[in-house]
């Protein structure tokens, strides 16, 4: 398996792909303030395969929102490729996020009205890639995850494992700095889960940075670095 990554070298100079610096996230539930993150600091270096683990309620979902730049911290800084996301407008953030981070969620990952191939093309269409590149790359990526024969199937016609593999292909389409996976095997049986994890492992071996959230120790064992969270911050 050879990754169709065209430029492995990114122009910007930075040490960490993502850096969380004393990040707080406080939700307001009516009058009560509920802190979900209490001064979380975390660094993701290029080439890492990091597993973020913790029991439910430990704040790992909020943490992945921060790492994925899907949400803005109440306090503290989030640096994406060395850039403070607080300095960006919403549209700029959306564009940069879409280009530099590839998301694989637990479920409902695919756009149900589009075929597998169209799903892989979607991020490239959002970022207005050239038409020829869109087609070449999407076909290559589907081949990479072993689903060329399912290119014209709709998500409802794919199994859970196949859906996640399409989601991985889509996450890779814009050649991101980071692949961010939120319980990617949560809804899969053991066999399909293993296939998906194998893909992550192989991608990492080829230099793709992966951050994965999981509560499963066995899955966490695949990573070369495990970060444990408890009560809104890192477990020491």
């Amino acid at each position, binding site marked *: 398996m050879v990754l169709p990554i065209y430029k492995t070298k990114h122009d910007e100079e930075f040490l960490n792909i993502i850096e969380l610096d004393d990040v707080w996230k406080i939700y307001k539930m009516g009058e009560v303030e509920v802190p979900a993150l209490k001064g979380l600091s975390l660094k993701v270096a290029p080439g890492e395969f990091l597993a973020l683990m913790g029991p439910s309620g430990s704040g790992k979902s909020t943490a992945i929102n921060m790492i*994925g730049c899907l*949400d803005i911290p109440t306090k503290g800084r989030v640096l994406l490729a060395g850039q403070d996301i607080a300095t960006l407008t919403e549209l700029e953030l959306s564009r940069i*996020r879409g*280009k530099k981070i590839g998301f694989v969620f637990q479920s409902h990952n695919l*756009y149900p*009205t589009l075929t597998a191939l169209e799903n892989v093309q979607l991020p490239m269409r959002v970022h207005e890639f050239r038409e020829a590149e869109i087609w070449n790359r999407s076909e290559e990526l589907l081949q990479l995850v072993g689903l060329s024969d399912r290119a014209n199937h709709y998500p409802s016609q794919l199994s859970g494992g196949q859906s996640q593999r399409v989601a991985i292909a889509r996450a890779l389409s814009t050649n991101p700095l980071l692949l961010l996976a939120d319980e990617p095997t949560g809804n899969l049986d053991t066999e399909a889960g293993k296939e998906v994890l194998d893909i992550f492992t192989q991608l990492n071996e080829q230099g793709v940075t992966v951050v994965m959230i999981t509560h499963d120790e066995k899955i966490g064992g695949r990573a070369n670095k495990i970060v444990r969270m408890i009560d809104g911050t890192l477990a020491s």
Partner: protein
Amino acid sequence: MRLLDIFLLSLSHVKKSRMRSWLTIVGVIIGVASVVAIISIGQGMQENVQQRLGGFGADIITVIPGYFRATGAHSEMHTDRSVSTSSSINLTDKDIKVIKQVPGVMYVNGIVSGKADLKYDNEKTVVSVTGVDTSIWRLMDNTGIDDGRYLQAGDSNSIVVGYNLAHGTFLQSITLNRPITIGGKNFRVVGILKQSGGFGGSSDTGIYMPAEMAREVITEKVANNQFTSIVIKASDASLVEYLKADIDQKLMSSRQVNPRTKDFTVIASALIREQMSSVTQTLSLFLSAIATVSLLVGAIGIANTMFMSVMERTKQIGLLKAIGAGEREIMKLFLIESGIFGLVGGIIGVIFGAAISLLIPYLGIQALGFGGDMKATITAETIFFALGFSVVIGILSGIIPARHAAKMRPVDAIRYDQ
């Protein structure tokens, strides 16, 4: 994101929930079809009225005896033409002279009209006879001659026959030079008028002869220097309103009457036509308003569907935002979807509306009070208006749901559970 790609994504939404999309579109179709049909029927009705009143000519003013006076709740017509005493037919040579001197008057024709017994080919009937000034009538007539000639100065026992009287009334059609007996006198047909289809159709079923002969043959008694009406042609149609008032004034002073004792009426057919148009216009405006309501119901249907679509696609909105789509793109995505409903509904609605309009004449529905067949006129403007309107309504009713979608925060949208 390129517009084409947004469009294709919208289209994939529409195609995926086919049943709901069609039901939404049906709502728009009903609205657009009723708007198109009603506007077309309204325009057809107006044209009908215009055509039927058109025979009178826009530059014609008529003076008749008696005065219609509205006094509070009571209104009465100060004339007793039905009794037809000579005193009630009170328009005279003197009035014609007065009118001739009004600036802007081109021709004045003293008319003597009434009913007369007619005998043709052993068939008998009663016809309406119009006695005219032979030297002037030809200059004022708008109907035109189908066969033969107009009356001319010097004619005495000559008549011109209306088209329907000539061709539809008797077993044997009336042709030129046929002898006809009217009121016991023998006449010769010198001309047959074209079919006017005019309002009331008097010129189609009537007989025209010199005024002095008409006095002798009609059952009503009209004295030698008297007329049953005076028809005036203005030198220009734009003068009609002013001329009507001027004639009214001049006749009042020469006849020594005031507005209370006034015993004649001046009518401008152009003004009648305007009034009739405004009535039909009001009517079609009213009907259009009703049709617009059904279009609004269609719009609410679109808005409802769009809200459902946005709810249903919350996760996809989150996904789109996560992969880099901005608020504007999400907004466009849903506006195009609602625009598609408006456009498709509009196109099919126009086709249905046009079909209904075209079928109307075959349903045999009689036009309200105008005595003719109902017809519908579909214009390009109507079609473009209906199409444009439905697309605009489609987009407008998508705005609120689309904004709702665009403002969603990606983090909430992704975690949203249905």
